[in-house]
């Protein structure tokens, strides 16, 4: 009990250890499932996100405030409202959704061009690797043109958000690549 209180106090006195993570991607990419997985919550009762969800998660000594914004087309214009002060951008891709690879690539390209997200490290979760039709992470990286990114550090992580495979590895990368606060 005391231990937890101490950790919480430390977190409060150390704002450098509090991070803002922005979770974006098309609808049905698996953002909310990922968020629930991060918070160790049940992933079997997920509903489509109207608006957004936010959760605070303790990970590797960091307090991560994770913002999960709905991915449907109607909501995408509001993504920009959440860019400010983002420490890490997490982009989730449904690797089995071949038809919308181009669409997801375009959305990501737009994000990377935005001023408010300039230099923000990017983690791409290549999700749904458990499905037979899923493309491997390397091919997704190619489709998204990740190798052409020069203005920020980035990483692609294969994962299965529903059972947690690969999720931890991604978060470890996040905690190692936190930009120095201004």
């Amino acid at each position: 009990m005391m231990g937890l209180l101490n950790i919480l106090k430390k977190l409060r006195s150390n704002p450098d250890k509090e991070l803002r993570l922005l979770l974006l991607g098309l609808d049905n990419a698996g953002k909310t499932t990922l968020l629930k997985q991060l918070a160790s919550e049940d992933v079997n009762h997920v509903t489509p996100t109207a608006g957004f969800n936010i959760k605070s998660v303790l990970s590797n000594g960091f307090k991560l405030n994770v913002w999960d914004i709905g991915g449907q087309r109607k909501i995408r214009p509001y993504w920009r409202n959440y860019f400010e002060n983002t420490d890490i951008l997490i982009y989730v891709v449904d690797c089995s959704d071949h038809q919308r690879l181009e669409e997801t690539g375009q959305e990501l390209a737009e994000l990377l061009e935005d001023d408010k997200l300039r230099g923000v490290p990017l983690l791409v979760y290549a999700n749904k690797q458990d499905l037979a039709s899923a493309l491997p992470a390397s091919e997704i990286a190619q489709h998204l043109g990740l190798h052409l990114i020069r203005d920020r550090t980035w990483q692609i992580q294969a994962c299965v958000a529903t059972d947690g495979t690969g999720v931890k590895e991604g978060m470890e990368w996040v905690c190692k690549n936190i930009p120095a606060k201004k």
Partner: protein
Amino acid sequence: MIVFNLWSVLQWYLRPFIKWFLRKTTKLCELQRICYGDKPGAERTRNVEKSLMQSRTRDVKEVVAYLDGVVYEKRFIPRYFRDILDPSIGIILRVKKINPKLHGTFVVSFRRCLEQIWSYRSLVDQVEQLRQTQFDSTNDDHEDKLLQLWSLLVPDTPLEARVTKQWQHIGFQGDDPKTDFRGMGLLGLENLLYFATEYPQVSSHVLSHSLHPRYGYTYAIVGINITSMAYYLLKDGSAKTYMFNAKQYLPNVNLFHKFYCYLFYEFDKMWIESKPANIMEFSDIFKKFENAVRIELADPASVFRINVEVDNV
């Protein structure tokens, strides 16, 4: 925390004495006192359930286990009520030394409570099963329901194709609703369909709100989130107030659908009244709405119904 534990331990020891004392002074057992003293509906049925679940009498425990078993075997349906409940009630009457000739009204009221309690438990299983059934676009039955939903909500415009942007008109996310049901499975679709079928005026009224240029929202997606709320309220027992206060119905899937319709209608009202700046306020307003519903459900006297008159204005 400690005080609370102490109290529950004390209660555990004191309960038999209090019950014995009341029994001696009132000449009635606890179940009788509840059935005679508490208002019919949620108050009475919840207290009967509590009394049965707390009982340390072997025979009562066996009756509870037997009825749970019947629910598990999916046999707790009105057709079998007499066969199932008569022996159970008989055991309780014998154990509690109640003369059914003197206490006829007790038997009637107690039977109603048992029907409600175990119909609710049976409903929880049925709803869970529907939720776990994933929407499957290769299943003709599922597909028919989806198309039916369209024709009920948008009777004047036929769908141009099975996969089309038109679905967004009724608030699905993309060209194909099949991925939108997610963790709510078939339950989400059945809920939407019931609302459109049984309350055509109310649902089209709500749909028209969802298309409002300023306060619009995504009808189907919000509907699926309402399904999730209704599901959790059912699972954690909060919905008992609603279900047990429904005088004409026992808890069953249709009553769950009605509960959903009520929630959808009320949410829509709150949403419009809140004058939200945009859909991003959904989470906040939805939470506020859930809190308001939980407060209402916490009062056993609450009665819920859709105020349909509003629809005609």
